[in-house]
C-alpha cells in the first residue's frame, strides 16, 4: 500500500521536470587541493530555475536544456564560489570538471549568522573544528552510506557512543563515553522530547528514521546555555532544514530477519483486542461478567514471518523569493523481528559459601512487529536579513504487536520437589501485547537581530507523548514433571488482562539575548544571557483484571485444553482502575537561567559562565492504604559553572580543556513508590532517591589534516555524587525483595579517547576507541558465620564494602569502519565493527559478585551502487556475527538474548 503511494509520488514528481529540450550539462565537482569529490554541492544555472546536487561521488547532471548560453554557478559552504559561462548546442552533452578551493574566510562569515550545510562529512568536521565545546558530528551522508535505518544504529559510529538495547525489542538509548542513558540527554532540534516509555526519560532512538536527520550532534561537554542535566553528554538529532533548491529523495527496501529461518513467527489475532477496558466502556462500577474477555488474542499461531518493509521520502522547496522554506519528510518502517531469550535468576547459595546459584530458569521467544511512521515538517520564514521564524513539527507514531512465549521453572523455591532441571512445576506463559505510541513535538522559534550587536533568540515548545497498551493478555498454564519425567496435563493457572496508558506532556519556553562585538581584527567578545522554564506532567494508568481458574465440582483447578473451552472466574470484577498500585500522576518544573561569555582571541577561544537550575518534582498515588509516601514533593537548586578553553595551535589543530558541573535527575517513575512493570523484574520507585551531581574535566587535542580527515585524542575525569543504580531493596507483602533505584555514594570515572579517520584513494578508514575506568565503593551483604561459646555456628548477614565499576559503565568502546568508494563504478561499501567490553547492568547485593553483560562485537556490512542518474541500489546486513547479549554472574549465565542477522535490500531515488 504505502510503497505504491511512494511510487506515485516519484512518478508525478519526475513528470514535472519532463520537457522537450535535448542538451545536457554534466560533470564532477572536487576539492581543488585533495581531488576528493564533493558530494552535496548545488550546481545551478543562473537565471533559470534549474540545477542539480552532486551525488556521493561528486557527479551532477542537468539535462533537457535548449541550446544557448548558460552561467553555471556552484555554492558549497566552506568552499569558494565558482562561476563559469558555457554554451551548448542541441543534443550536445557538455562535460565539465569544477575544482573548488576550501575557504576558511568563507566559513567564518557563515558561522557568524546563518547555518552550515552540515549534512555532509567535510562540513561535519568543520563544525567539530569550530564548535565552542567538545562535539562529534555525524552527517546525513555518513548515515546514508552505512547500514543505518534509524538514528540508533547511526549513532554507534560517533566517537564513544554505544547503545543500550532492551531484550526482545529494537529499542535503543545512547550511551556516551560508556555511561548509561540516564546520564545523557537526547534532543530533537535542540529540544527535549517527552517519552511515553515508563522507564526512560527519552524516546527510543530506533523510532527516529535516519532519513529524517540532517545530522546528529554529540556534545561531550556543556556550555552554560545548554541544559545542565547531562553528565555523559548530549545527543542532538537535527532534522532536515529547508534547502535552497528543490529537493526530493525517496527510498524503499525490504528485509528479513534470519532468526525466522530457524523458527516461525508467533502471532495472535490483533483485531480482536478491545481498545477500551470495561471500566472505560461501562463506568467504574461495572462488574464484568465471566464471558466478557476476548479469546482470539490468546490463541497463538505459528506463521512465516512477513518481510520487513521500509520506505521514505523527503521533499523540500523554497518559495516567495526564497523567503519561505518548507521541508517535509516521512519515514515508514514496518519491521518484523524476533528474539530468543534465556532468562535465569541468580541468588546466594547459603549451602555453598554463598556463591551465586541459578534459582529460576525461563526460556522466552519474542516475535515482534514494529511499525514506525515519522512525519516531520519544517517551515522557515526569513522576514528579512535580520529576522527569521521557524516552525518545526515532529510526529512519530509507533505500533507494536508482540507475542511472548515463555517456559519458566524454578530450581530453588516455589515448592521445589525436583531432582534436576526439567522436573518440578513448569509454567507456560503466553502473552499478547499491542501498543500504540504517539509523540508530538511542536516547536516555534525565532532569531532576531534587534540592534547592531544584539541578537534575540526565542523558542516555545509543546510536546506530548502517549502510549496506549490495551488488553495486555497473559495466560499461564502449569504442569508437574515428576522425577521419572512423566508429566501431568496442563492446568489453567491464571489469566491477567491489563489496559495500560501513560503520557508525558511538556510545555517549555526559552529565550536568550546575545551581544557580540569585535575587539579588534582578530578578537571578539560575545555575552549571552537566557533562561528556560519547563513544566512537565506525567500520568500512568493501569486497569487490571485477574481471571482465575473456575474450580471443578470438587473444588480443584481445571485442566486446560484450549483457550476457547476454558472456564474462568473474574476475580476482581470491577478492575483495579481506582486503586491500582501503578497508577500515579507526577510533575516536574524546571526553571533555569544562565550568563555566558565567549572571548575569541587570536588563538584562544574561552567560553565560560554559570547556569542555575531549579527543580521541583512530585507525585501523587492513590493506594488502597494511604501512607506518608503516597505523595511527595522534592525541590533542589543547582549552580552549574562551566569553563571551556580552545587553543588554536595552528590552522589544522586545536587543543581544548574544559570544566563543567552537571546533574542527572531521576526519572519521575523512579521516585514513585509503586511497581512499574519491567521485562523481567518490576521496578519499585524510591522517593528517597537523590539526584546525581557531577564535576567534569575534559582535555582534547584535535588535528584536521585535510578534508574528511581527523585525529582526536582526549582524556576526561568525572566525579559523580549519588549516581543512581538499581539493586534489590527490602521486602514486599509476599516477603520478596524488590528492585529499586538507589544511591550508593560517589563514583569516579576516568577515561581517554582517540578518534581517527582517513581516506587512501578509494579506501577510507574511520575509528574511535574510548577507555573508561570507573569505581564506586558500596556496601554489599556478606554472610558471616561465627561460632558462639558452645561451638554452635551462627550466620548473620552483615554489610561489607566492595569496589566495583559504576552500573552501566563500559570500560572499552571501539568502533572501526572500513569504507570503499569506487568512482568509476559508482559503488560504495562499508564494513562497520563495534566492540564493547563488559558492563554491570544491575548491582548484585552479595559481596564478591556482580552481574556483567559480556563483551560484545558487532559487524555490519552495507553497500550501494548508482545504477542510473536517479536510482541507487542499496543493501545492508546487520549483526553479521549474530552476537548475543549475555549477562553472567561469575560463570553462570543469567540472561542471553539472541537476535540473529538481518538483511535489507532496496533502492534510493534522488531528484
Amino acid at each position: 500500500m504505502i510503497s505504491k503511494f511512494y511510487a506515485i509520488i516519484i512518478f508525478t514528481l519526475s513528470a514535472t521536470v519532463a520537457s522537450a529540450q535535448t542538451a545536457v550539462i554534466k560533470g564532477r565537482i572536487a576539492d581543488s587541493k585533495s581531488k576528493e569529490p564533493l558530494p552535496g554541492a548545488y550546481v545551478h544555472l543562473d537565471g533559470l530555475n534549474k540545477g542539480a546536487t552532486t551525488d556521493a561521488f561528486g557527479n551532477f547532471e542537468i539535462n533537457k536544456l535548449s541550446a544557448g548560453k548558460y552561467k553555471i554557478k556552484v555554492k558549497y559552504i566552506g568552499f569558494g564560489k565558482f562561476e563559469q559561462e558555457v554554451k551548448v548546442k542541441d543534443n550536445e552533452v557538455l562535460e565539465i570538471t569544477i575544482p573548488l578551493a576550501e575557504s576558511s574566510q568563507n566559513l567564518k562569515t557563515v558561522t557568524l549568522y546563518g547555518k552550515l550545510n552540515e549534512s555532509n562529512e567535510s562540513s561535519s568536521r568543520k563544525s567539530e573544528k569550530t564548535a565552542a565545546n567538545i562535539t562529534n558530528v555525524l552527517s546525513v551522508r555518513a548515515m546514508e552510506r552505512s547500514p543505518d535505518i534509524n538514528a540508533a544504529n547511526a549513532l554507534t559510529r560517533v566517537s564513544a557512543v554505544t547503545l543500550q538495547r532492551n531484550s526482545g525489542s529494537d529499542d535503543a538509548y545512547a550511551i556516551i563515553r560508556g555511561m548509561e542513558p540516564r546520564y545523557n540527554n537526547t534532543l530533537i532540534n535542540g529540544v527535549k522530547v517527552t517519552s511515553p516509555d515508563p522507564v526512560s526519560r527519552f524516546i527510543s532512538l530506533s523510532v527516529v528514521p535516519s532519513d529524517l536527520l540532517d545530522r546528529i550532534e554529540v556534545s561531550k561537554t556543556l556550555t552554560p546555555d545548554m541544559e545542565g542535566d547531562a553528565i555523559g553528554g548530549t545527543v542532538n538529532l537535527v532534522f532536515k532544514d529547508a534547502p535552497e533548491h528543490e529537493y526530493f529523495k525517496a527510498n524503499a527496501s525490504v528485509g528479513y530477519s534470519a532468526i525466522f529461518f530457524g523458527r516461525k513467527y508467533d502471532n495472535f489475532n490483533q483485531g480482536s483486542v478491545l481498545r477500551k477496558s470495561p471500566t472505560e466502556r461501562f463506568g467504574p462500577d461495572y462488574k464484568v461478567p465471566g464471558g466478557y474477555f476476548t479469546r482470539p488474542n490468546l490463541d497463538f499461531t505459528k506463521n512465516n514471518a512477513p518481510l520487513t518493509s521500509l520506505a521514505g521520502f523527503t521533499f523540500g522547496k523554497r518559495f516567495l523569493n526564497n523567503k519561505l522554506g518548507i521541508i517535509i519528510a516521512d519515514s515508514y518502517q514496518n519491521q518484523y523481528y524476533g528474539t530468543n531469550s534465556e532468562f535465569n535468576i541468580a541468588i546466594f547459595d547459603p549451602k555453598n559459601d554463598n556463591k551465586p546459584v541459578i534459582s529460576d530458569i525461563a526460556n522466552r521467544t519474542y516475535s515482534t512487529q514494529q511499525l514506525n511512521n515519522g512525519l516531520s515538517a519544517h517551515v522557515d520564514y526569513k522576514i528579512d536579513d535580520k529576522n527569521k521564524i521557524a516552525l518545526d513539527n515532529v510526529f512519530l507514531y509507533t505500533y507494536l504487536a508482540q507475542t511472548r512465549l515463555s517456559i519458566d521453572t524454578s530450581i530453588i523455591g516455589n515448592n521445589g520437589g525436583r531432582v534436576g532441571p526439567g522436573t518440578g512445576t513448569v509454567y507456560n506463559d503466553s502473552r499478547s501485547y499491542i501498543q500504540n505510541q504517539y509523540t508530538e513535538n511542536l516547536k516555534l522559534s525565532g532569531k532576531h537581530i534587534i540592534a547592531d550587536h544584539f541578537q534575540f533568540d526565542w523558542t516555545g515548545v509543546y510536546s506530548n507523548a502517549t502510549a496506549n497498551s490495551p488488553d495486555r493478555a497473559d495466560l499461564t498454564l502449569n504442569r508437574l514433571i515428576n522425577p521419572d519425567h512423566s508429566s501431568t496435563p496442563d492446568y489453567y493457572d491464571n489469566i491477567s488482562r491489563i489496559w495500560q496508558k501513560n503520557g508525558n506532556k511538556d510545555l517549555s519556553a526559552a529565550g536568550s539575548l546575545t551581544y557580540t562585538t569585535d575587539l579588534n581584527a582578530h578578537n571578539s567578545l560575545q555575552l549571552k544571557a537566557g533562561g528556560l522554564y519547563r513544566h512537565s506532567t506525567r500520568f500512568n494508568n493501569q486497569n487490571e483484571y485477574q481471571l482465575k481458574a473456575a474450580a471443578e465440582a470438587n473444588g480443584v483447578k481445571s485442566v486446560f485444553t484450549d483457550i476457547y473451552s476454558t472456564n474462568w472466574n473474574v476475580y476482581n470484577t470491577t478492575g483495579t482502575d481506582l486503586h491500582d498500585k501503578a497508577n500515579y500522576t507526577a510533575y516536574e518544573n524546571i526553571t533555569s537561567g544562565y550568563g555566558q561569555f565567549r572571548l575569541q582571541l587570536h588563538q584562544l577561544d574561552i567560553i565560560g559562565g554559570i547556569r542555575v537550575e531549579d527543580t521541583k518534582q512530585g507525585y501523587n498515588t492513590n493506594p488502597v492504604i494511604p501512607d506518608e509516601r503516597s505523595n511527595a514533593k522534592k525541590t533542589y537548586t543547582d549552580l552549574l559553572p562551566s569553563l571551556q578553553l580552545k587553543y588554536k595551535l595552528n590552522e589544522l589543530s586545536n587543543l581544548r580543556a574544559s570544566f563543567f558541573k552537571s546533574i542527572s535527575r531521576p526519572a519521575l517513575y523512579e521516585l514513585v513508590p509503586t511497581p512499574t512493570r519491567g521485562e523481567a523484574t518490576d521496578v519499585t520507585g524510591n522517593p528517597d532517591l537523590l539526584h546525581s551531581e557531577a564535576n567534569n574535566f575534559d582535555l582534547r587535542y584535535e588535528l584536521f589534516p585535510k578534508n574528511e580527515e581527523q585525529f582526536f585524542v582526549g582524556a576526561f575525569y568525572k566525579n559523580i555524587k549519588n549516581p543512581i543504580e538499581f539493586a534489590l531493596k527490602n521486602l514486599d507483602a509476599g516477603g520478596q525483595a524488590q528492585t529499586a533505584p538507589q544511591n550508593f555514594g560517589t563514583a569516579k570515572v576516568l577515561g581517554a579517547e582517540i578518534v581517527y579517520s582517513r581516506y587512501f584513494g578509494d579506501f577510507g578508514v574511520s575509528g574511535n576507541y574510548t577507555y573508561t575506568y570507573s569505581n564506586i565503593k558500596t556496601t554489599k551483604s556478606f554472610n558471616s558465620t561465627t561460632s558462639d561459646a558452645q561451638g554452635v555456628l551462627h550466620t548473620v548477614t552483615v554489610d561489607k564494602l566492595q569496589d566495583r565499576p559504576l552500573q552501566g559503565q563500559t570500560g572499552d568502546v571501539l568502533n572501526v569502519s572500513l569504507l570503499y568508494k569506487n568512482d568509476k563504478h559508482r559503488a560504495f561499501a562499508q564494513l562497520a565493527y563495534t566492540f564493547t567490553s563488559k558492563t554491570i547492568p544491575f548491582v548484585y547485593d552479595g559481596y564478591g559478585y556482580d552481574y556483567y553483560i559480556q563483551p560484545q562485537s558487532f559487524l555490519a556490512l552495507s553497500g550501494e551502487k548508482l545504477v542510473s542518474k536517479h536510482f541507487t541500489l542499496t543493501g545492508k546486513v546487520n549483526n553479521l556475527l549474530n552476537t548475543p547479549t549475555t549477562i553472567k554472574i561469575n560463570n553462570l549465565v543469567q540472561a542471553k538474548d539472541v537476535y540473529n542477522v538481518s538483511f535489507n535490500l532496496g533502492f534510493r531515488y534522488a531528484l
Partner: protein
Amino acid sequence: MLYNSKTIDMSTKSIYLMIAGILLAAIISSCKKAEVTTFNEVKIPTSSPISAGDISGFTKGTLLAGQTYTVTGDITVKKGDTLSAQPGAIIVVKNNAQFNINGVLNLLGSQDKPVTFNSDTNKPGTWGGFQCDTAQAVNIKWTHIDNTGGPDLAGNPRRTLVVSKLNVPVDIEDSWFSNGQDDLMGLFGAKVTILRNTISSSGSTDGEGINLKSGATGIVAYNVIFSQAGSGIKLETSKTIPFPQTEVAVYNNTIVSVGWRRGSAEPGRSVSVGVNAIGHIYNNIFVNCYHGLEIFNDADVKNTNYGNNLFYATVDTFTDLVVPTIKINIRDNFYPAGASGTPQATDLISNTIGNYDPLFVKFDGTVAAPNGFPNLNNFRLQNGSPAYGTGNNKYNQDLGAYTTDGKGNQH
C-alpha cells in the same frame, strides 16, 4: 563468687539446724487461721470504648463485650494505637472491607464468649481480613474469623492475616478460621506462637494454611488444618535474602485432606520445608493429604529434624475427578519422591487401610473438597488410637492436636 565462698564456709551442721527451723515454722503456721481479704467486685471502666453500630476509617480503642459492630469501610489502626476486642464482641463486615493494622491488634475472646468476625453475607471470600503488614503486635485468642479473602481494590488476593516485618510478635491461640481465599496466615519474618487453632476449608484454588517465610521463627502446635487448597504449613526463607533463616517447631498438629485444589501440577503438602528454612517437625498426624511431609532439597536439610509423625490415608488411590486418568496413590506421597525427606524409624507410616488408622472420633473420609466445605469432623482420638503414647517426649507423649495431657486443642 561471694555467694560460693559463703556456701563453702557453711558447715553441714548448720544446714541441719536450718532445715529443722523451717519444719518447725511450717507446723506452727499450719495451725494458724489464715487472713482472708475479699475485694468487692468493682467495674473498671474500659479505656476508649467504641460505641456499637457502624464503624470505619481510623479507629482505636476497645470493641465491647456483647456489642455488635458493623464495619462499613476499611478500618485503619495507626502506629501506636491499639484495637482491642472484649469477649463476646460481634463484628459484621460489609463492602468487602479490611482491617489495616499498623499498631497493635488485641482480639481477646474467651472459651465461653469468643469474639466473632464475619461478613454480612456469610459467604466465602467476602471481606478482607487483617492486613497487619507493619503491625507492632498481633494477639488473637478465642476468636472466630470466617469468610475472609476477597480481592482488594487493587485486585490483590488478600490473605486472612498477614504480617511482613521482621520480629513482629504474633500470638494466635484457640481461634477458628474458615473459608479464606488465599493464604490463611502469611507471617513473614514474624515471631509466632500459633497454638490450638482450627483452620477449615480455606484457599480457593491456591493458598497455604500457615505460610511462614522470610525469617519467621517460633512454634506452631496443636492446630487442626482441614481441607486447605495448598499446603497446610509451609516454611521458607526468602530466596534473595537467605538470612535470617526461617526456623519453626511444628508439632502435634492434625492436618487432614489438604493440598488438592491447586491441581496435580502443584500438589499441596501437609507440611513443607523449603529454601534455606529449618523445621523441627514432630508428633503430627497427616491424613488424606496430597503430599505428606516434604523436605525440599533446597531446605536447610542439615539442621532440619523430624520424626514421630503419623501418616494415614483412608483410600488406596484417589481418582482425580478432573482428569480420571490420574490415580493418586496417597501412600506413595507420604514422603514424596525427588525431595530430601525420608521415613524415620519413629514415624507411624500406614501401609494399608486400617494400618495406623489414628481413629478420629468422627471423620467423613473427605479427600478433595471445595473451598468453603463444611468441617463437621471431630479429630479427637478414640481410645486405642496408635497416636497415644508414641510421641516424642520433648514435645508431647501423644501425637496430633488432641492430647491426653490437656495441653492440646480445646475445640
